């Protein structure tokens, strides 16, 4: 599915060139979950950003090729890359709250992906059911009980003042009346094709009450729900491959178990490839089939999960496994490495 050969990435800093990636070779097969482990600064994330050309301006891919489904995307145009990102490869980032736009509803954010990548399906659906592709931006003011009380109070005030003579109360009265009327009328607007597909993609990630969630803003959801929305967004474009960059680092263990189970289920149902980037060896053991260990911008060991945990070959892998606290009380063996892998 994804094949990376000899990828080299440099960052130009004031202190000189930082070789973040130093010849990374990686193959993710069709329909497998591939784990990429390493510590902070070892180049895990840079690998996936380089492959998708999402590097910041200081970063630069010096050498290497990236093949996606047999297609060389190393020198692909920006236009083609836009189709690939989201259309063929979906990405989940570490912190869902900062990856989601706080001023857009979930509906709008997933809708954006659908408009970009699922144009045909949207049009087909709208023709089939004779509904619009998307409604114009809804006026989303729903009067809560407090607002209603305010509205009634103000309208009474304006009514009373109207009895005397015309004053500023009158326009207020009309504005509120129109707002309430508009909101009332809009409840009967049928769902557009976009709404239907958004709800569909949200229920795919097993979110309870997807219609309600589509209307809400990111901050109204819990961390686990936000991450589910991120997954829904990554899958909305019918991506064949999912890159999950530390998808569970910001979550609790119980929620982490849910999200990992979800990724596994979806991978099996859709027969997708998943590249799981993480620093947690336990997560890898639980989820992945094959795993690569990164250190200082290189892949030092690549093997199936069972082999790597039972019989680690490279000294760094051994050190990493030893550093995990286990049941016993014996002193932890600290790997003799710098705190930062790269540079």
């Amino acid at each position: 599915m994804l094949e990376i050969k000899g990828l080299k990435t440099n960052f130009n800093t004031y202190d000189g060139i930082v070789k973040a990636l130093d010849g990374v070779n990686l193959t993710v097969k069709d329909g497998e979950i591939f784990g990429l482990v390493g510590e902070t600064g070892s180049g895990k994330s840079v690998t996936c950003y380089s492959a998708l050309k999402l590097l910041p301006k200081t970063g630069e891919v010096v050498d290497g090729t990236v093949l996606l489904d047999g297609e060389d995307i190393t020198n692909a145009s920006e236009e083609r890359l836009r189709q690939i990102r989201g259309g063929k490869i979906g990405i989940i980032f570490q912190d869902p709250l900062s990856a989601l736009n706080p001023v857009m509803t979930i509906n709008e954010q997933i809708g954006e992906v659908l408009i970009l990548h699922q144009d045909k399906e949207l049009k087909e659906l709208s023709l089939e059911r004779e509904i619009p592709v998307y409604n114009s931006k809804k006026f989303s003011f729903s009067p809560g009980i407090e607002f209603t009380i305010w509205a009634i109070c103000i309208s009474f005030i304006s009514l009373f003042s109207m009895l005397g003579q015309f004053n500023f109360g009158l326009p207020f009265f009309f504005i509120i009346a129109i707002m309430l009327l508009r909101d009332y009328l809009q409840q009967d607007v049928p769902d557009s094709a976009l709404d239907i597909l958004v709800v569909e993609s949200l229920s795919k990630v097993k979110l309870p009450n997807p219609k309600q969630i589509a209307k809400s803003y990111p901050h109204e959801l819990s961390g686990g729900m936000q991450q589910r929305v991120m997954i829904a967004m990554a899958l909305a474009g019918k991506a064949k491959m999912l890159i999950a960059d530390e998808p569970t680092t910001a979550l609790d263990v119980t929620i982490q178990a849910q999200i990992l189970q979800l990724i596994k289920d979806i991978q099996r149902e859709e027969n997708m490839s998943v590249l799981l980037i993480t620093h947690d060896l336990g997560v890898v053991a639980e989820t992945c089939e094959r795993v690569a260990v990164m250190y200082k911008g290189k892949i030092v060991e690549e093997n199936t999960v069972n082999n790597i945990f039972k019989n680690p070959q490279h000294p760094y892998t051994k050190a990493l496994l030893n550093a995990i606290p286990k049941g016993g009380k014996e002193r932890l063996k600290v790997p003799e490495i710098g705190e930062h892998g790269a540079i």
Partner: protein
Amino acid sequence: MTKEYILQIKNLRKHFPVKNVWGTDIALVKALDGVDLNIEIGKTFGIVGESGCGKTTLMRTLLRLVEPTSGSVILSDQFIGKSGRTLENLTNKELRLFRRQIGVVFQDPMGALNPRMLIKDIVGEPLVIHGKTGNLRERVIELLENVGLGEEHLYRYPHEFSGGQRQRIVIARALALDPKVLVLDEPTSALDVSVQAQILNLLNDLQVKFNLTYVFISHDLSVIEYMCDRLAVMYLGKVVEEADTEELFFNPQHPYTKALLSATPSFEKNTKRIMILGDVPSPITYLDESKAKLATDITEQERLEIKAIEGKNIDYIIRSSLNEVFPLIEVSEKHFARVKS
């Protein structure tokens, strides 16, 4: 032999009020709801739980950074030389003395260090505040050496250090006034495994060297298992289970503990696991009862979720939205569900 306790927490409660637009209380967030813990001297006491279960509130109440609603913390005579004192009726002078004896290490080291202060000022600040300014420089160097740093780090700023070194500086500062108790609030959650191993080793060394008592708060069960002698599992402001670490890990009693333990990713594949569906229920208790019973039944979506999971070698637990002591209700042998009204 009777055990000697340094802190005895008795029925501690902290309720935060929730106000509506008019300023009247409509609900209570029961952050701590009757916590009883006894912290033994010279041992490491662990507190685990998910986010929002009240771990951090407990820590803040222990330091009296927030005033508890009710309950008391009985201090051992090691703190202020008098026996039988409780935390909530300390005088200002005694509180100052008490805070000298209890050090804190927070989760995010960069947030805990002032970016515009030199390391010598950061580590020396507690000494200056508590008026122990004699031999200040030597004392700061000694503290830094305790945590594996040295004289050459005195005139640097926090941003010049890596995450692990910053956490060392925070530990050095916490040790500045020779505390009896060190409260560690997720000290390693922002660190890599190899750096985490260094910090945990350092903490173990310091405990032996200075005969410290640790209160170790974490959500990482492997770290807790490694560090702690005794352990309390918290859920929604209550302690659901408290036991010695080994006992709790080998023979968990409460269904929530079982689920929490099985949720931790492990190297052994195909172990049977108990899934917890849904998020942590809100700890808010509405004073108006009609509001509280909004979400009690299993939703349609959850039914689908159960169907999807059934027969996959996974047990499951559904969290209740009701605010009950034990929100997990046993339906059959291995299935738990939320309460139906």
